């Protein structure tokens, strides 16, 4: 058993999440905010009643300090969760060193926590959803994330069970196919929402969604690379059976 402390990895994970969150914040501000502003412009041009009398938080604060709070807290929180998942995955998902484990985990996180739910319930800019359905949309969004993560874990277990019989390659193909099939079934049976107003500019919607994907891509990639580096440095000197001549555990998947 590895005696490296969970606390030290958790701290590094939250730190890596914070730094990756800073990079994601730049993407959110420079790529995302223009389409958020365009959506709010559309909203104000179309609102018939004047409910903008008392604005609790102004647009300038929302798009800077408010945005930063949201993205950075999100980065730290997922950094911590991913670090805990890393502690479980390390040495248990095959012969991968710390850096490769972190990279695989981040890729899996991006896909199951964000991309798979996004394809069913994509990110929406302001003024494109019905406020009356917020409860159902939120519940279904979180349900889709939970389902996607659980199906991802199930696919890993399935792949490992099949590996002795099919070999690693075909076991992986079968596990991915089973995952895609199960996700497809979930997509087919969960309700969809078609609430974007007919005259909402399609290019704004497209740019907004691309930016939302870019935010997550940068966040998870940045986290994977940085946390992998930190974990490698933390774990390499004490990784039990490492040949001193080779030093660092080198595994490139």
């Amino acid at each position, binding site marked *: 058993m590895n005696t490296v402390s969970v606390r030290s990895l958790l701290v590094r994970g939250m730190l890596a999440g914070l730094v990756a969150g800073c990079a994601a914040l730049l993407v959110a501000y420079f790529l995302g905010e223009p389409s958020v502003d365009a959506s709010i412009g559309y909203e104000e041009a179309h609102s018939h009643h004047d409910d903008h009398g008392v604005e609790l938080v102004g647009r300038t604060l929302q798009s800077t300090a408010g945005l930063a*709070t949201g993205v950075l*807290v999100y980065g730290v929180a997922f950094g911590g969760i991913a670090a805990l998942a890393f502690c*479980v995955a*390390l040495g248990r998902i095959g012969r991968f060193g710390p850096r490769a484990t972190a990279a695989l985990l981040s890729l899996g996180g991006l896909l199951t926590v964000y991309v798979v739910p996004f394809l069913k319930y994509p990110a929406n800019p*302001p003024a494109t959803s019905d406020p009356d359905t917020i409860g159902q949309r939120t519940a279904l969004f*979180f349900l889709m994330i939970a389902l996607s993560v659980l199906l991802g874990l199930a696919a890993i277990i399935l792949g490992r069970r099949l590996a002795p019989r099919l070999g690693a390659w075909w076991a992986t193909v079968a596990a991915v196919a089973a995952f895609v099939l199960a996700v497809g079934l979930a997509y087919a049976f969960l309700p969809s929402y078609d609430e974007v107003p007919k005259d909402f500019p399609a290019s704004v919607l497209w740019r907004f969604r691309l930016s939302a994907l870019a935010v997550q891509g940068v966040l998870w990639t940045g986290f994977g690379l940085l946390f992998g580096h930190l974990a490698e440095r933390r774990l390499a000197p004490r990784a039990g059976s490492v040949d001193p001549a080779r030093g660092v555990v080198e595994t490139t998947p």
Partner: protein
Amino acid sequence: MAHSAASTTGSPALPEVAPISLKAIAPWAVFFGVLMLVLLYFVGAEQGATSLLSGESVHEWVHDGRHLLGFPCH
């Protein structure tokens, strides 16, 4: 993935990293796992679908992040 296929078919074994015992992970996972989920809840859903705190200030403050991080909003 091709590399993992190669390693199971007997190519020079890479040094294996010892796993961390689940008993050592469990207390951290329970306490910090819940804490992190609470943080995500406040960024993603508080004063939207459900409200623990009255008012709109949390929602208004993290509003742009909520949209750009993909959480359902308005």
